[in-house]
C-alpha cells in the first residue's frame, strides 16, 4: 500500500514537471514569434509552439487532438504560410523594415495595458477553489461518436464554411487579365 502510494506520488511529480517544462517552451516560443523581424524565423518558432502545445494536449489525455494539432496546424497551415512568404519574396529588406517599425515607443503602452489584464486574470484564477483532473483519456472513438451524433449539424456547418473558404480564396486569388475587344487586340508578333 505504501509503495503503491509512493509510485503514485512519483508519477504525479513527473507529470507536473513535464507539464511545466512544456508550458515554458510554449510561452518562450510564442514570445519569440511576436518579436522576430524575419517572417521565416517567426514561422519556425510558431511551429515549435504548436508542437509543444500538442504535447500539452497529450498530457491532458486528449491524444486525438494532439495528433490533429501536428497534422493540420503544424503541417498544413504552416505550409500555406511558408508558400505565401516564398511567393512574396520577403527577405532581408522586410527584416530591416520590421526592425525600424518595432520601436519600444510603439509597443510599450499596449504591453503595459495587457499586463494589467493578465494580472487580473491571474488573480481571478488563483482565487478560485482548487480542483484537479481525473486523468481519463478521451480517445478518438468517443470524439467521433460525439462529433457525428449531437454535433452533426456543426460538422455540416464546418463543411459549408470550408467550401466558402475555398471558393473565396480561389476568387480573391485569381489574376484578372485586361480584356480588350477582339478588334482592338494587338497583333501577336
Amino acid at each position, binding site marked *: 500500500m505504501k509503495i503503491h502510494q509512493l509510485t503514485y506520488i512519483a508519477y*504525479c*511529480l513527473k507529470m507536473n514537471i513535464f*507539464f511545466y517544462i512544456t508550458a515554458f517552451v*510554449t*510561452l518562450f516560443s*510564442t514570445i519569440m*514569434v*511576436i518579436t522576430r523581424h524575419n*517572417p521565416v524565423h*517567426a514561422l519556425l518558432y*510558431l511551429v515549435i*509552439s504548436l508542437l509543444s*502545445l500538442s504535447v*500539452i*494536449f497529450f498530457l*491532458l*489525455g*486528449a491524444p486525438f*487532438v494532439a495528433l*490533429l494539432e501536428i497534422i*493540420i*496546424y503544424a503541417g*498544413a*497551415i504552416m505550409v*500555406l*504560410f511558408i508558400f505565401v512568404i516564398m*511567393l512574396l519574396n520577403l527577405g532581408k529588406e*522586410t527584416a530591416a*523594415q*520590421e526592425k525600424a*517599425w*518595432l520601436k519600444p515607443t*510603439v*509597443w510599450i503602452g499596449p504591453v503595459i495595458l*495587457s*499586463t494589467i489584464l*493578465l494580472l487580473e*486574470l*491571474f488573480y481571478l*484564477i488563483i482565487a478560485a477553489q482548487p*480542483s*484537479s*483532473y*481525473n*486523468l*481519463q483519456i*478521451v480517445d478518438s472513438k468517443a*470524439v467521433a461518436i*460525439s*462529433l457525428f451524433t449531437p454535433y452533426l449539424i456543426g460538422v455540416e456547418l*464546418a463543411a459549408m*464554411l*470550408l467550401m466558402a*473558404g*475555398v471558393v*473565396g*480564396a*480561389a476568387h*480573391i*486569388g485569381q489574376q484578372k487579365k485586361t480584356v480588350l475587344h477582339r478588334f482592338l487586340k494587338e497583333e501577336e508578333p
Partner: protein
Amino acid sequence: MMSTPIATEIVILLAGLLFVLGIVGVIIRKNIIFMLLSVEIMLNAAGLAFVAAGSRWAQPDGQVMFIFILAMAAAEVSVGLALILRIYHQHKSLDIDKLKEMKG
C-alpha cells in the same frame, strides 16, 4: 480513475497567457503576415482552453470544439493569405499604415 496533479487553473492560465501574447502581437506589429500569425496564436489559446475544460470532466465535447476551431482556422487562413497576396500585388507593401488609404 486517478487524479492527475496538473491543476485546471494552471492550464487555463497558460491559455490566457497565450491569448494575451496573441493580442500583443496583433497590436504591436505593422506587417499583415505577423498579425495573421498572432490571430493563429489566439485561436490556439482558445482551443487549449476548450481541450482543458473537456479533459477536466473527461468529456469529448472540448475536443469536438477544438476540431471546429481547426476547420475555422483553416478557412480563415486560406482567405486571409489570398487577401494578403492581392494586397501585395496592388500596393507593393504589407504595411497596414499604407493600407488605410483603402478607406474602409
